């Protein structure tokens, strides 16, 4: 057997899970879809004393209307996000992003909450949720708190969650009218983690200029990264070739991605700028195509 021995607990409610965390704190590890944690356990890079399986907590798996936006239970499978008609109409960016995660066999188990709590800097969902101004709810022994995605991701594989907190819910506010979105990435193979990926949201004002704009990248730092200067550059202007060129340049100059075996920092900078321009162009086109 590959993993080190552990005690297995499978609570049926959020309250029961939180109680286990309150009792065992850092000795207990939460198991969501297991598509990142179990590989780490099989390689014994993770050796939790207690594994708290969230898969029997039915109340954590839902997708629902939330004042025109989306309310998503943490244990909602990526496969459900990919195929939900509600997600397709309310938040096509989430569907487009999810379809890029791994393979069907991975998405059949992987969950949105697990992906956010794992906080892999190369993962797609954290960047998309950051671009969407998602709000993440954590439930602890005394109360629950809701954090903006902006302050949730603290570093590589590190979040603002306390050891006795459980990520329970993700809320995505409705997008403004006439808004286009796009997620693009460059990966070495289909289904791999992205070398660089970008989530783009852009809304078109009645006068044809850009209103709300968001650009969030994965694979370029310890956390998903927004390039706010590029967002500011877009606001109030028409995205013609000159502006898109300027955004591409600004993105490439601003980001400070890592170098590794797969790609140099320079390459990632170049790709990030190009992807930003392409994704903006596509998102803008999607607004005009209705």
């Amino acid at each position: 057997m590959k993993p080190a021995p552990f005690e297995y607990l499978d609570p049926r409610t959020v309250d029961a899970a939180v109680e286990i965390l309150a009792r065992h704190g850092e000795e207990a590890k939460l198991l969501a879809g297991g598509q990142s944690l179990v590989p780490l356990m099989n390689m014994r890079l993770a050796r939790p004393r207690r594994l708290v399986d969230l898969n029997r907590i039915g109340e954590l798996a839902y997708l629902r209307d939330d004042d025109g936006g989306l309310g998503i239970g943490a244990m909602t499978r990526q496969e459900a996000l990919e195929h939900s008609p509600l997600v397709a109409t309310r938040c096509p960016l989430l569907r487009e992003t999810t379809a890029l995660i791994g393979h069907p066999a991975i998405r059949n188990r992987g969950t949105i909450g697990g992906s956010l709590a794992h906080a892999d800097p190369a993962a797609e969902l954290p960047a998309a949720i950051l671009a969407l101004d998602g709000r993440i709810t954590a439930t602890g022994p005394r109360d629950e708190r809701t954090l903006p995605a902006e302050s949730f991701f603290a570093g590589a594989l590190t979040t603002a969650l306390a050891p006795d907190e459980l990520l329970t819910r993700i809320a995505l506010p409705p997008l403004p009218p006439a808004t286009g979105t796009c997620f693009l990435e460059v990966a070495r193979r289909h289904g791999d983690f992205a070398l660089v990926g970008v989530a783009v949201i852009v809304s078109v004002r009645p006068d044809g200029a850009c209103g709300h704009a968001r650009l969030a990248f994965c694979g370029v730092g310890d956390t998903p990264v927004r390039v706010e200067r590029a967002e500011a550059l877009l606001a109030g202007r028409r995205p013609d070739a000159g502006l898109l060129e300027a955004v591409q340049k600004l993105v490439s100059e601003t980001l400070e991605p890592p170098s590794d075996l797969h790609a140099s920092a320079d390459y990632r900078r170049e790709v990030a700028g190009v992807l930003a321009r392409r994704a903006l162009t596509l998102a803008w086109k999607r607004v005009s195509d209705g």
Partner: protein
Amino acid sequence: MAERHVVRLTVNGEPAERLVEPRKTLADFLRQDLELTGTHLGCEHGVCGACTVLLEGKPVRSCLLFAVQLDGAEVRTVEWLARDGELHPIQAAFHEHFALQCGYCTPGILMTVHDLLQRSPSPSRDEIRRELAGNICRCTGYQAIVDAVEDAAARLRAVAPRGGGR
């Protein structure tokens, strides 16, 4: 040693009940406890796809699940495909197109293809390649595999609808 748990589940239509240590993966459970050695283990961290089985009808990596999680679940493995000594049309197509060499990756590929053809009865060659990106074959270069999947799709369309069939 951690406490063992009783799991009762259905595998290939047969009920099974065993006492398992929590750290036993579904893949090891199938191979060691149920002696269903058709499911192969390659990388044991979810990358190669050799251990793919169907859980509640959907493909999953059996190396990334613990058997203890599956009390009450319904699992199907590659052993479920052939019936009464007769190969499943997907298996027959793989056989005839020489869509394997060493055969190590084949069980996972067959289960992945079974799911693909349920969802998409007439996949394009591009779609087949994309769907198989999660199953690593180091022998064939995939050419014959893609041929076999196209052929299997045609065979299954010819016998459909079989209504809940394999």
